[in-house]
């Protein structure tokens, strides 16, 4: 047993911390603090992403022959952790989910043009899976692609297509066969957002995350835009899901906030003169958060270790998703309690920690139902971990 990062991993962590800290220039930080650009898409963001590409930090999990780094899952986890600590909206789904699948299953055109564009930091994807009637039951999706003129004609509607407002392409899941079981008749296409049949309308959300309804009206794509074989898209959707889930619950961002909070607590006097760090319930909140963070880190580490040793357990993946997403909600709550009313202030002279908590608490629920809702994850644990009968 050896439950710690090895020397190489520690030094990667250090290297990444230095690299990303220096990358966060004041103009980038300013742009990211603008409500319009905090999710990326602004000129500074684009410029930085290109630089990251140039510096070779995109394509971590990709094979070396395609210009990737072939990072191990642990190294990828460290990368996600360090980027997330800075608050840079790194397009992980494009670089670590879509990219590796294109180099593995994409057409020659896609490999040459799209994969290279991703590696260079030029291309960003939106993920078009969910539909108004197909959320958790994703396999029931109805957006259709019909073969026509040596290509495909796409019609339908997606919902919650995040980043579609500035992405260059949508990674689109479509129904291509009604004659087979619903999982079997799905195909993935690369759809350019500058097609005249593509439209989007923004959906505003509680956490100010802008996502979109996207509409596809007679969008024609040539065959080269199909990824993998026709009707075999479901595997492409699910194969990356465990890694994606792991990125969603990375302990880095909450740990970063926790470290900032600890400094603040030790430095802040309450109005009655006592130090914030001397208040009993504050101490208990701090310890609770610490305990959750330690556990989450270990759950995630075990998962990446399993992945590295080709021993990925579905139970562990589901556990990480549930534990992380539910812990985040509690951690934000407990941090906000410590700050009191001030925690609900938006950017203001009085607000503490740049009102980060105020925004985070508003986005926290998305992870409990997104990325595979937690009820289904619990079903998986009961079934695969406890060998109990299937619930449906």
């Amino acid at each position, binding site marked *: 047993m050896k439950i710690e990062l090895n020397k190489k991993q520690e030094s990667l962590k250090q290297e990444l911390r230095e690299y990303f800290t220096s990358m966060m220039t004041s103009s980038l930080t300013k742009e990211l603090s603008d409500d319009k650009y905090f999710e990326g898409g602004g000129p500074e963001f684009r410029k930085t992403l290109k630089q990251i590409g140039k510096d070779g930090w995109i394509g971590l999990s990709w094979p070396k022959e395609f210009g990737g780094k072939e990072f191990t899952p642990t190294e990828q986890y460290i990368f996600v952790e360090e980027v997330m600590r800075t608050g840079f909206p790194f397009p992980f789904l494009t670089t670590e989910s879509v990219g590796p699948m294109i180099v593995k299953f994409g057409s020659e055109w896609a490999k040459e043009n799209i994969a290279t564009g991703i590696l260079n930091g030029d291309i960003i994807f939106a993920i078009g899976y969910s539909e108004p009637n197909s959320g*958790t039951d994703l396999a029931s999706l109805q957006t259709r692609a019909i073969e026509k003129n040596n290509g495909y004609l796409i019609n339908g509607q997606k919902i919650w297509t995040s980043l579609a407002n500035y992405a260059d392409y949508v990674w689109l899941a479509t129904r291509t066969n009604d004659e087979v079981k619903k999982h079997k008749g799905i195909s993935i296409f690369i759809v350019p957002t500058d097609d005249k049949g593509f439209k989007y309308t923004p959906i505003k959300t*509680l956490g100010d995350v802008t996502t979109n309804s996207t509409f596809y009206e007679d969008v024609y794509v040539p065959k080269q835009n199909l990824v993998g074989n026709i009707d075999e898209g479901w595997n492409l959707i699910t194969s990356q899901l465990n890694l994606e889930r792991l990125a969603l619950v990375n302990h880095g961002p909450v740990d970063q906030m926790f470290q900032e909070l600890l400094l603040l607590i030790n430095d802040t006097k*309450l*109005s009655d003169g006592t130090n914030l760090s001397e208040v009993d319930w504050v101490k208990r909140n701090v310890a609770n958060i610490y305990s959750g963070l330690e556990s989450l880190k270990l759950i995630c580490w075990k998962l990446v270790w399993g992945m590295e040793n080709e021993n990925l357990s579905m139970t562990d993946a589901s556990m990480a998703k549930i534990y992380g997403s539910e812990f985040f909600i509690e951690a934000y709550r*407990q941090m906000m309690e410590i700050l009191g009313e001030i925690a*609900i202030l938006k950017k203001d002279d009085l607000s503490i920690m740049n009102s980060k908590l105020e925004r985070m608490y508003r986005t926290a*629920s*998305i992870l409990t*139902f997104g990325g595979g809702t937690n009820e289904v994850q619990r079903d998986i644990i009961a079934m695969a971990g406890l060998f109990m009968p299937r619930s449906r």
Partner: protein
Amino acid sequence: MDFSNSEESTIIRDNIKKLLGNYSSNDYLLKYDEYKLDLELFKELKQGGYLFDLESKNPFNLEFFLIVCEELGYSNATFDPTQCISDVAMTLSESNTEIAKSALKKLFSEDDYIFSSALVEPLNYDIESPSLIGKITGERYCLTGKKIFSYAADQASCMLISFICDDGIKLALIDPRLCNVRHTSNTTSKPYFEISFSNFDISQDQIINGDKNGLDILKDISAKKILIQASYAKGITNRMIELTSEYTSAREQFGRPIGSFQAVAHRAANAFISNQVLDLNLKHVTYKYLNNNECENELLNLKYILGNTLHEISYTAQHLHGGMGVAKEYPLWRYCLEAKEFELMNGNSKSALAKLSQNLTSNQ
């Protein structure tokens, strides 16, 4: 024992529900999403007799006001009368000072006359122990310090503040237009202001303590605040639960309503139980408070429960709705913002629990 509601309270609830129906459509609320201050609604509440009743012997009736607050919470109302009525007007109605009487007269007679209070301080979980210092110089007090979360302080003609001096805790009425008032943008977009005092001068006749001890006045304000917060909380959680049960009954995935999945139904049922617990505790403490029974511990317990319930039900509702729960085109999101505000205002569940445990163990 009788847990039923009086006929009179049912009538009040029905009437206020009807009135608020005109002020709670999505289109109406949209107009106030950037800045949630609706003085029209304030006037309507005033004129309708929902904030005070000049025909009765005591114009303020806390029991009825709590019903009004619950319905304001339920309808996501665009005006919050808590500071004006409960913190200030009800407090003034118990003061025998001239300034209190004349301020109240104005509230009763002028349609847009509004009070605000400045009792909350940064990083002070307890309004009963203000740290704003008033230096006594002869017959006057000189204030330096800061208050936060004063509601509609830019509209108010009169503001109640608390401070501490060598003579103990004082409460005074001031004209907010004479001090430094700054808007602070916040999660619910309510008009909250920071009030800064720098050598701010107050005369003896602005003090409203009369023959009362300042701490006792603040304790009473604080008790009413908890009851009002719990009433708002109940309105908010009632609506969140209602939306959740309706939505999960209608939304289908895997060919069946999501509410028919046992895990969904059970989580909704847990929310229902927590909401009932909040309701029962609120009723009990209201009863005790209105009958002048000692209820400090019950109030702390209520404060503890209301924070937990708001937190739990807000996230349950969001989760069970999936994406729709956080979309601004659907009504739930505003309730979630309100829930967080009421959870954290004037102390929180943990600080209340700590105080409660101290009381319980020291009594023994």
